[in-house]
């Protein structure tokens, strides 16, 4: 049974659920589960710049820093591994149901 939420709360919940925060050279959360059609937004709180690129070449951001975020909509179910284009030790996964 769906909880009784206002539309604004629903939007905020979706926005929070599909947000990845880059901090201290890590993607948080490292693995994110979403539904097909959802949009994931990356933001960065480090002083260093970051950028994301998917292992299969499906998506690629520019610089992510300060107010500049990156958003990508995942239409097809699957598991999408990605990494930071500048720091290959940073990696994450999006699981699309």
């Amino acid at each position, binding site marked *: 049974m769906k909880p009784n939420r206002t539309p604004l709360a629903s939007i905020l919940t979706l926005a929070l659920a599909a947000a990845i925060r880059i901090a201290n050279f890590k993607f948080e959360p490292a693995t994110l589960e979403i539904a097909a059609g959802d949009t994931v937004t990356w933001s960065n709180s480090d*002083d260093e710049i970051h*950028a994301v690129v998917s292992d299969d070449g499906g998506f690629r951001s520019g610089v992510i*820093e300060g107010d500049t975020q990156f958003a990508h909509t995942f239409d097809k179910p699957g598991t999408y591994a990605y990494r930071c284009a*500048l720091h290959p030790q940073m990696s994450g996964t999006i699981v699309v149901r």
Partner: protein
Amino acid sequence: MFETDRRDFLRCMAWAGAGVVWTLSGGVPSSRALAQAVLKPGDFHFVQISDTHIGFNKEANPDALATARVAIARINALPMRPELVLHTGDLTHSQKPGEFDTASGLLQELSTGAVFTVPGEHDVFEDDGREYLARFGKGSAGNGWRSFDSHGVHFVGLVNVLSFKSGGVGALGAEQLAWLEKDLAGYSASAPIVVFTHIPLWAVYPDWGWVTSDGQEALSYLRRFGSVTVLNGHIHQVLQKVEGHVTFHTAYSTAYPQPAPGVGSGPGPLKVPAEELRAHLGVREVSFRASDGALALTDSKLG
């Protein structure tokens, strides 16, 4: 350094400031006071500058362009003009419009015979190196690797931020390794070799990406040579290592320092009090002594 007369010598001293002179004798570096490291004017010397990060303007250094200019002024004030300058990468910071123009202009201000660069990951992450190669790739092969000879020294510039294997950054790749093996084959073991590339070729701290995954393969081609000097950037601090006849030296940045390996959460800009910033930045002079091929490295802080 060298001495032609006392005035020039004093200028050398002023330039090096608290600089340390590393000399190599039989492959083992030892530091000596600058006053003892006297080379003749005919000797060959060149400069390494690294990690200028043009475009960076965060708290760790609100004006990376200004400190890059300080570094260039220092180089241009050398009593004897360096034969060439090597930039070991991260010329620019974020591939934003204008950064490459500014970096290019800066390098043209250098008073030297030639400038050779290798890219850092900051120079190529957004477009797989297209702009970097268009501006700095002339005379290079593949993704920007190259070699040349000067004064009997064989220089090899490698690119370890653009491999096409998964991950890309921190690898040389099979094509470049094959090129390197072939490039070195024609040189006798007594030829001094200088390798310059952005990311350290040895495993400084893999957790932070301070390693080249196939670096050992490259080193296997270099081991037969009697004098190999590897100059790297990327980690914004000076570290050295000796392995047989191969010595490795990472370099200061001219933009901002980074923490020592493993100290803190990651290899980001390290904030220091503003008045101390220049003491964490620097440039390097490398001299070959013609008479016996002895090598001296002088790391000089900007303040």
